[in-house]
């Protein structure tokens, strides 16, 4: 069930250039699954007005804590990054349909492909896959080394390969360059990142089962305003899905790329 709650800041830390890790505490953690997101109001005033959708990067149900990792870029996320321990943040969530962990069987291998600020939700996913006995390979793309984060965390969970646009870390190029180099063997892929990356991935592995998380500009975040619709590939005329409430994760092939 989606709830709206003032959650308490447990910790806020800058973990890479302009990248922040924010841990919040509150009841709505109990219902979170990997790949879902929260919709965050960053200030009490009308400025900025709208909530910001941010993925869930880590869930700790025992402590009732979760973590998000975000880039402080625009007005909203910059304000969010000024929150300090003990302050309250207005969170609506958890929202949407996350990554189906059960689609990878124990003993199988899952390929997790992330790009930039699409990487965070893969962390909790990887944790849960690993806990289930699934073998996990990460292929993570970033602009450059200085905006790369969670290297230790991902390495601890499985093989981790990097691609950076400027070559400052791992392979120079895109995640597909890594596929060329490493030729990972896997049963199912999960992915989150920019559209070109998702498109490339779908083309690279046309026959594999896969799940992809999408981004779209949002207003309500709960399916009421029709801001975040995407066309679907097939089905009756004018078929569409809403990223916020039908997604953000869809099986490969559902959303027209």
């Amino acid at each position: 069930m989606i709830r709206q709650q003032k959650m308490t800041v447990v910790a806020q830390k800058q973990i890479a250039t302009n990248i922040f890790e924010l841990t919040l505490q509150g009841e709505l953690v109990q219902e979170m699954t990997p790949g879902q997101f929260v919709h965050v109001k960053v200030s009490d005033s009308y400025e900025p007005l709208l909530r910001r959708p941010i993925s869930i990067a880590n869930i700790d149900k025992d402590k009732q804590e979760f973590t998000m990792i975000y880039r402080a870029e625009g007005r909203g996320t910059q304000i969010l990054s000024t929150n300090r321990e003990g302050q309250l943040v207005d969170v609506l969530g958890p929202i949407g349909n996350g990554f189906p962990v059960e689609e990878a069987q124990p003993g199988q291998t899952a390929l997790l492909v992330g790009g930039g600020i699409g990487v965070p939700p893969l962390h909790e996913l990887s944790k849960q896959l690993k806990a289930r006995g699934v073998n996990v390979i990460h292929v993570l793309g970033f602009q450059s080394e200085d905006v790369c984060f969670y290297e230790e965390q991902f390495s601890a969970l499985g093989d981790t390969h990097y691609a950076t646009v400027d070559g400052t870390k791992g392979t120079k190029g895109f995640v597909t360059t890594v596929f060329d180099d490493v030729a990972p063997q896997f049963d199912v892929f999960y992915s989150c990142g920019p559209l070109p990356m998702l498109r490339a991935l779908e083309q690279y592995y046309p026959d594999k089962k896969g799940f992809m998380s999408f981004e779209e500009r949002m207003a309500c975040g709960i399916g009421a305003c029709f801001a975040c619709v995407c066309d679907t590939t097939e089905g009756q005329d004018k078929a569409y899905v809403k990223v916020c409430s039908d997604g953000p994760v869809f099986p490969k092939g559902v959303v027209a790329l």
Partner: protein
Amino acid sequence: MSRLNMTLPGLELKNPIMPASGCFGFGREYAQLYDLSKLGAIMIKATTVETRRGNPTPRVAETAAGMLNAIGLQNPGIDKVMNEELKFLESYDVPIIANVAGTEIEDYVEVARRISAAPNVHALELNISCPNVKCGGIQFGTDPETAKQLTAAVKAVSEVPVYVKLSPNVTNIVDIAKAVEAGGADGITMINTLVGMRIHEHTGKPVIANGTGGLSGPAVKPVAIRMVYDVYKAVNIPIIGMGGVTCAQDVIDFMSVGASAVAVGTANFVDHFVCPNIIEQLPAKLDALGVNHISELIGRSHR
């Protein structure tokens, strides 16, 4: 004995608070958050004869204390709205105001005729003010004579009272209000969104795929308040006011200038519980103002 109930043509409202059309879908999503029967009424998303896919995305953009939208009247069409959405809403004790849109007068008439027969639709809201579609919508709302004709045509077939939703993008909103009153409107709802645009800082192109979008939220409240103020003086039919409402004080401001009820739009995206919260806060506000029943506030700016 409620201090908040209100009677308007076709509508017995528990309280004068309702979500605005397009900002609440058909209620399903908010029904997961709270009991819809708490609401005075629900203005459902614009309904057209045919299924509409709406505009390309991005369809929304944030602006200073406001937002732009260009959804483009996306909706599943009258059949599905009647068979599925309105059916679903029947399980709540709340009157529905159906927002009616179209490209030609005939479309409006058809939607109005059919949807006004639904048991829980207690009033229609004619959307002659949507700025986000090429045909239909706003052009009916900028010319008094056209607005009057459309109102009369819909009145002729509707089984419930007809409210007409006015556009703020006009030189003289009072002329339009008088015209729809002359056309037989039972009430006025106002305002729809102001046409606006946001530019992407790097590309220099409009952020919204449609180019322009409709501006809503706190930023437009002064414009809405002034227009309700002016229209209240000029017509004898009730007004449902809206534009930037976020709190109980905003409701009181709209009623002061002449609204008999108030709709909440954009604020539903920001505080998803804003409608029940306002309803809960109103009695204390009435106490502070020394007022027994909320209707005493209607039009007090003019007294």
